[in-house]
């Protein structure tokens, strides 16, 4: 990394002085991105471990005596919250966003490097608070990741009467502060710091996706923040925002007049856009990868951008499709079912344009491409089952069954993770200057792709049967046959294998850092700017003396008349050979 104090374009760069400034309290967006990735992957591994504990109980009930009902629900809750917020949101926006926005837009760093650094450390603090809840008496909250009151702040739910729920809510509040600092940075950088020639409609789709996801986050997270603060008040100060008259443990509690459904509205006003906060960056990664590795221009760029904007807009008026049977005014169902199914149209357009990009292409089956194609199949599957659950009356028999578990894991767990892995394999050479091992990558891919499908696909069918989700044990119920227990065993075995396979990825990451083949400067032959830097990996300030100038859109593959099958964004017409 360039250690010299540098002045570019009349502005002094942030100037790291020594190891701490360069690697720990760094203001360089690339270092901050890596910090986000490492912390997110570490807490994500914890989340995966918790899911395996859950699976052990479901597959082999009673085998581990330490997994009692209380700790099972704690595992469920922390698994969900960690994966959605602390892994995927942080990794996509904090990790990919930080790394790619300045590099792809041709600027030297984020608009506010110091705030960017604070954003990471606030995120780190939120993770610490979250993890701390494992070590308090009565443990972390077991309220389910939706944290619905009244149960989330009452005894009878693990951590409800202890510090668990308070730490959870405090951690979320800190996370939202971190997100806001990062988010304002991403928005400002995209709007203000683009290289000459980089018009909005020449931005790579992943930047559009991260930009819009950030926008969603900045508008949606405040709803969660106020919900969390009001819930802390209800718990600590005994206000009654969400608490009606309650009779519990043989006595009437000191609450009255509040509405539990109000919290659900606040939660899902955040919660549904949150789905897209995760999905949009995944869409972005796929848009990049599919074009680069199929050596073909992305199909229908304009339509893709407008579809993204439509999705981001409609994402704010579909939230109550999580609440069809929650006791809200039932006539709202007509409205929310209609908006929810409308959002399927722009989403379908995204899928069509990805698959049409493959038409008459020149498809390289690299590891990133495998992840890309697997994403398409999985996302298609998970997206289509969303049409069941969004469609109000169809949701009634399926709501809160394993169909829901199957659906949302397909669409917002497996799909984004496949995109994430594709992205990690794709940009690893840019970050480290070395290639990942291909064979290990393929082994990891096959186990993950097939394994996750085997885990989540059958869940839809026990959902048809009516097996409710969030059950510690099914043994009491006569309508649930023995075959469900057998299936649970099978799923647990698959989950253990898939879980173990993730260590192949970690191993590959660590070993390739030292032993991986040295990566050429632009190993995939991509048009976007992050591969066109002076040094590879890019140094501090990214571009040396001269900022790049952009002459074309980011998907110039197969341009007629050019000898090469791609033309980078910063190559002017007269230099095309």
């Amino acid at each position, binding site marked *: 990394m360039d250690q010299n104090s540098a002045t570019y374009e009349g502005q002094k760069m942030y100037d790291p002085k020594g190891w701490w400034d360069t690697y720990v309290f760094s203001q360089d967006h690339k270092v901050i991105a890596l910090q986000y990735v490492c912390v997110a992957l570490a807490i994500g591994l914890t989340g995966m471990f918790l899911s395996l504990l859950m699976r052990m109980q479901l597959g082999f009930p009673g085998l581990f005596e330490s997994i009692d009902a209380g700790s099972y629900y704690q595992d469920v809750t922390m698994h969900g919250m960690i994966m959605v917020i602390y892994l995927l949101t942080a990794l996509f926006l904090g990790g990919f966003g930080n790394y790619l926005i300045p590099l792809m837009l041709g600027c030297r760093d984020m608009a506010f490097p110091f705030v960017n650094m604070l954003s990471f450390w606030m995120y780190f603090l939120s993770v610490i608070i979250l993890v701390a809840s494992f070590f308090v008496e009565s443990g972390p909250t077991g309220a389910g990741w939706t944290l619905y009151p009244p149960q989330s702040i009452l005894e009878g739910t693990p951590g409800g009467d202890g510090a668990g729920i308070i730490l959870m809510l405090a951690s979320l509040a800190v996370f939202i502060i971190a997100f806001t600092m990062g988010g304002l940075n991403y928005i400002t950088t995209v709007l203000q710091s683009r290289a000459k020639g980089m018009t909005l409609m020449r931005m790579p789709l992943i930047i559009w996706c991260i930009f819009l996801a950030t926008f969603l986050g900045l508008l949606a997270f405040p709803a969660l923040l106020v919900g969390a603060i009001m819930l802390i008040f209800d718990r600590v100060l005994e206000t009654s925002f969400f608490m009606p008259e309650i009779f519990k443990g043989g006595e009437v509690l000191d609450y009255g007049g509040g509405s539990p459904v109000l919290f659900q509205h606040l939660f899902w006003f955040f919660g549904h856009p949150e789905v897209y906060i995760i999905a949009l960056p995944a869409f972005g990664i796929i848009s990049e990868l599919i074009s680069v590795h199929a050596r073909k221009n992305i199909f229908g760029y304009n339509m893709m951008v407008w579809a993204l904007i439509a999705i981001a807009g409609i994402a704010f008026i579909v939230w109550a499709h999580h609440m069809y049977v929650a006791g809200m005014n039932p006539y709202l169902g007509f409205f929310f079912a209609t908006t929810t199914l409308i959002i399927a149209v722009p989403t379908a357009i995204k899928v069509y344009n990805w698959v049409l990009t493959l038409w008459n292409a020149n498809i390289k089956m690299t590891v990133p491409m495998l992840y890309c194609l697997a994403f398409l199949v999985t996302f298609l599957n998970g997206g289509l089952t969303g049409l069941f659950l969004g469609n109000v009356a169809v949701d009634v028999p399926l709501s809160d069954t394993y169909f829901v578990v199957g659906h949302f894991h397909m669409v917002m767990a497996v799909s984004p993770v496949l995109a994430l892995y594709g992205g990690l394999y794709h940009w690893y050479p840019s970050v480290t200057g070395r290639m990942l091992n291909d064979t290990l990558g393929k082994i990891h891919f096959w186990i993950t792709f097939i394994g996750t499908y085997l885990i989540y696909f059958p869940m839809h069918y026990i959902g048809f049967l009516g097996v*409710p989700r969030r059950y510690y044990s099914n043994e009491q119920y006569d*309508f649930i046959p023995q075959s469900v227990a057998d299936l649970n065993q099978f799923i647990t075995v698959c989950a253990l294998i898939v879980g173990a396979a993730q260590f192949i990825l970690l191993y590959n990451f660590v070993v390739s850092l030292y032993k991986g083949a040295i990566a050429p400067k632009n190993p995939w032959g991509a048009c976007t700017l992050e591969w066109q830097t002076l040094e590879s990996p890019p140094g501090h300030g990214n571009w040396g003396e001269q900022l790049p100038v952009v002459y074309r859109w980011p998907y110039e593959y197969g341009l007629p008349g050019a000898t090469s099958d791609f033309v980078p964004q910063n190559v002017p017409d007269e230099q095309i050979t």
Partner: protein
Amino acid sequence: MAFVIVTAIIVIGTVLWNFVSPWWFSPLASNWGFLDTTILISLVITGIAFVLISAFILYCVVKFPYREGNKSEYEPENPALELKLTIITTIGVIALLAPGLYAWKLYVELPVDALEVEGVGQQWVWSYRFPGEDGVYGNTSGRLFSSKNTFGLDPDDPYGQDDILIRGGEVHLPINNKVVFQLRSKDVLHDFYVPQFRAKMDLVPGQQSNLWFEPTVLGTYEVACAEYCGTGHYAMRGVVVVDTEEDFKTWLAGQPTFAETMNEGANGEQIVQTLGCVACHSIDGSDGIGPTWRDTYGTNRALASGETVVVDDDYIKTSIVNPMSQIAEGYAPVMPAYATLSEEELTAIGDYIKTLSE
């Protein structure tokens, strides 16, 4: 090529699975067969989309593999094709949405001539109330709940005196009769769900929600709570028995009215049913969230603290009033304290537990 073969197997397997799956809708026992139809419509339409798009992907992968020196076709836009696809998708979405909205209209419009039942949820038992001979429910209030007045009924309301109270989790319904459930909760969220009836609705404390269906098959069905409600969620099992009209009337006549329950003395069995103790403490010897009560009176109990105590009247009373002080070994410290029970009620519970060891 491996990708094409494996993915083809996955896609074909996904479709075929619908014909061979050992798990499918549980046998229908209500009027809501149309909900099953909407699921089938959705399966067909989404299935077609899934197969067509997947097949297109696989075709492309086979047909356009990378060849050194080859170049892909340069086609950034094709507005006509994009418009066509958008229209087809919109038609598919309308075909899904129309039956869904129609079914929802049926679902939310409550029939007027129906039998009325109130369903009440609490951690972790179900109870029910019928309006009684006058056909009118008595007023309730969240402030009036007590271990005796478990429905929070206003004792001064004349309409409430004849309300019939079903405590203990088993309710009977007459066959081929529309039933409207008015649902409320005493403590946290719950969800009344009988898989064979398809219908489902949350119970929310502080407000009322509604649900209606018409049982069409005689039999006994399980109620499973479908909204997470705390540690005992999975154990919140109830039973609905669908009877003939006559059997139903006989059963209903045998149930106590509100006035009768208020005049009862302390009855241990009744108290543990209404407080929901039995959701965690079985009376048949099976293990649950807490230790069973069967054959436990007078035995030694190892505590999490390492001590050993004898299960006697004192231990039982302390465990109810201050459960955290004496957690049994091997069980989670999750039991709520029942600090407001009277001495008479505590003794009655102890006496009842004693009878389970005889």
